[in-house]
């Protein structure tokens, strides 16, 4: 993939934004268990960083997907995984379906303010009894005249404590399985809705994660995104953006980790020489850097195919799977080669180690990616 001078300036913009507007606050946000999403998103909107690929008609930037790659890589370099996750929920996980399938009225009332940073969005799919198996979800929206009456619960919802609206996936008929679900824009000021718990997590601590409860909440049927009954299919499509941005971010985050580790190992001496002078250490890092490069180039190919209009399900699935696996390897090597200080909370490696564990679980676990691949490649009985 050929990046233009415009990509380079854009990369610098995002990198400086992260260095100035995010990194200095990370420790506070980690301690608080969340970052101020409205404030940060408004700042991002002013620089045109929310909704890169969306239609300018709704406040998007009209960029092509290659800028999303640069954006992902650069926000991935932030000093904690939680902020990039919260950002990409807003830009690439909770809003793509609304942008593509939503009515003009819905896009005016919910997409435009989200892209301006005035509303925070969340994606509400997972439930206590349905995560990997999305078809098992039970939250119901029962039609009553022009309203849906929503009851149920959602779990592990990123931005859930602060969100102004949810892209909610609920059952709207009794068909069962993959049928009869719909995506609904659910405003969080709806009576009967409650954040039942703010969850305490291993990592990504500067991102708020919520359990949500719905008790006979009434929202207009006109809040349905796209076609009633096509929610599962629309969500599966939306997951592709989620997995792609996840893989792009992972590259930035791992590159930063390897760079920091390289610098440390050149300085730290043991047995009369810098640690990097041990061939085992250097070879291990060189190989991980090579693996990272394979992923980066795979992402770039994914991007080109996506821009060429191809279905990139296979690309997104493989990139997400390999990114999750590589994050675990690289964060493990970084903490290992830092030794004792790497285990200390004052060193970046400790947080990185915790944060990096999520990618193999969130957005579809590794095994779910493998399941998808088995289907695509016919590794089935």
């Amino acid at each position, binding site marked *: 993939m050929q990046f233009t*001078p*415009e990509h*380079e*300036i*854009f990369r*610098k*913009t995002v990198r*400086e*934004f992260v260095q100035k507007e995010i990194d200095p606050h990370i420790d506070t946000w980690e301690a608080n268990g969340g970052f101020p999403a409205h404030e940060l998103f408004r700042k991002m909107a*002013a*620089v*045109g*960083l929310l909704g*890169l690929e969306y239609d300018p008609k709704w406040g998007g*930037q009209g*960029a092509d997907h290659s*800028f999303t790659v640069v954006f992902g890589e650069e926000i991935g370099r932030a000093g904690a995984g939680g902020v990039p996750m919260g950002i990409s929920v807003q830009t690439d996980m909770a809003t793509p379906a609304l942008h593509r399938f939503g009515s003009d009225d819905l896009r005016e009332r919910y997409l435009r303010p989200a892209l301006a940073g005035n509303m925070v969005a969340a994606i509400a799919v997972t439930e206590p009894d349905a995560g990997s198996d999305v078809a098992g979800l039970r939250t119901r929206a029962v039609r009553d005249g022009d309203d849906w009456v929503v009851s149920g619960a959602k779990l592990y919802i990123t931005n859930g404590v602060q969100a102004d609206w949810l892209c909610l996936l609920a059952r709207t008929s009794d068909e069962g399985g993959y049928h009869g679900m719909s995506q609904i824009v659910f405003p969080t000021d709806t009576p009967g809705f409650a954040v039942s718990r703010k969850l305490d997590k291993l990592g990504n601590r500067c991102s708020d994660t919520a359990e949500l409860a719905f008790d006979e909440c009434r929202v207009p049927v006109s809040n349905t995104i796209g076609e009633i009954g096509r929610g599962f299919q629309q969500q599966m499509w939306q997951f592709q953006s989620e997995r792609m941005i996840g893989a792009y971010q992972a590259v930035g985050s791992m590159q930063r980790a390897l760079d920091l580790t390289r610098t440390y190992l050149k300085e730290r001496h043991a047995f009369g020489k810098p640690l990097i002078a041990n061939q085992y250490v250097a070879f291990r890092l060189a190989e991980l850097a090579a693996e990272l490069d394979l992923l980066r180039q795979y992402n770039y190919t994914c991007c080109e195919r996506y821009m060429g209009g191809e279905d990139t399900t296979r690309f997104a699935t493989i990139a997400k799977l390999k990114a999750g696996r590589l994050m675990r390897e690289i964060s493990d090597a970084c903490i290992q080669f830092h030794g004792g200080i790497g285990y200390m909370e004052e060193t970046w490696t400790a947080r990185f180690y915790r944060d990096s564990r999520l990618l193999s679980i969130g957005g579809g676990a590794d095994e779910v990616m493998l399941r998808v691949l088995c289907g695509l490649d016919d590794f089935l009985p």
Partner: protein
Amino acid sequence: MNILVCVKQIPDPAGPQELNNDNTLKREGKLILDESDSYGVEIALQLRDTAGEGEVTLISMSPGEPSGLRTALAMGADKAIHVVDDTLHGADALSTAKVLAAAVQRAGDYTLVIAATESTDGYTGTVPAQLAEILGLPSVTFAKSIRVEGGKVHVDRQTEAGYDVVEADVPAVVTVTAGVVEPRYPSFKGIMAAKKKPLETLAVSDLGLDLSSWGQNIVSVEDAPSRAAGEKIEDDGEAYLKIVEFLEEQKVI
């Protein structure tokens, strides 16, 4: 109000800095907008926007691609003049000022020429004053804020004690101190719009200059002496007195 901003494109200070055989700095790689100049660009954009009319024109002399100029255009400047010429290799501060002055004279009507107090790579801090002299314009340095009103430029000029309020007729050359404003990020739309903005590339001959007798010869370059060890004060409970004494000697307090 038309404003000209002199911006230097420099090798990324975060990267390795290398010298050529003739002891000049290697400028072959990717050049970036000198951060020192981003403050002047920001102030110029604010002045233009407050005035509600006029253009911000960038002027730069450097080899290679106009990558730093593109950044400043993406921030919102209207057009750029880039002087590129192999004969300028190794130009000293005075030659630089002469080239910039010739470019300024081609740029049409203007109210202000803005530059940084000093660049990040050469940091002689002498180009802007020489530029003012060649152009026969007032020179105001170390500005922390700039206002144009009633045919005059009003500058708060930073000093060690605080700031002086200085007035000069326009047009004038004003240098801006780093850190006095928050330069805007080039936005996505700004970056894309910059692609279509006029960027004129000029050679020395276009400026009607003869450089044959100019230039400098850098005879040798040496590493700065490494810092001498400081004085160690053992704390016997009253070490703070010694520190206070030292600071008083240095006239810091």
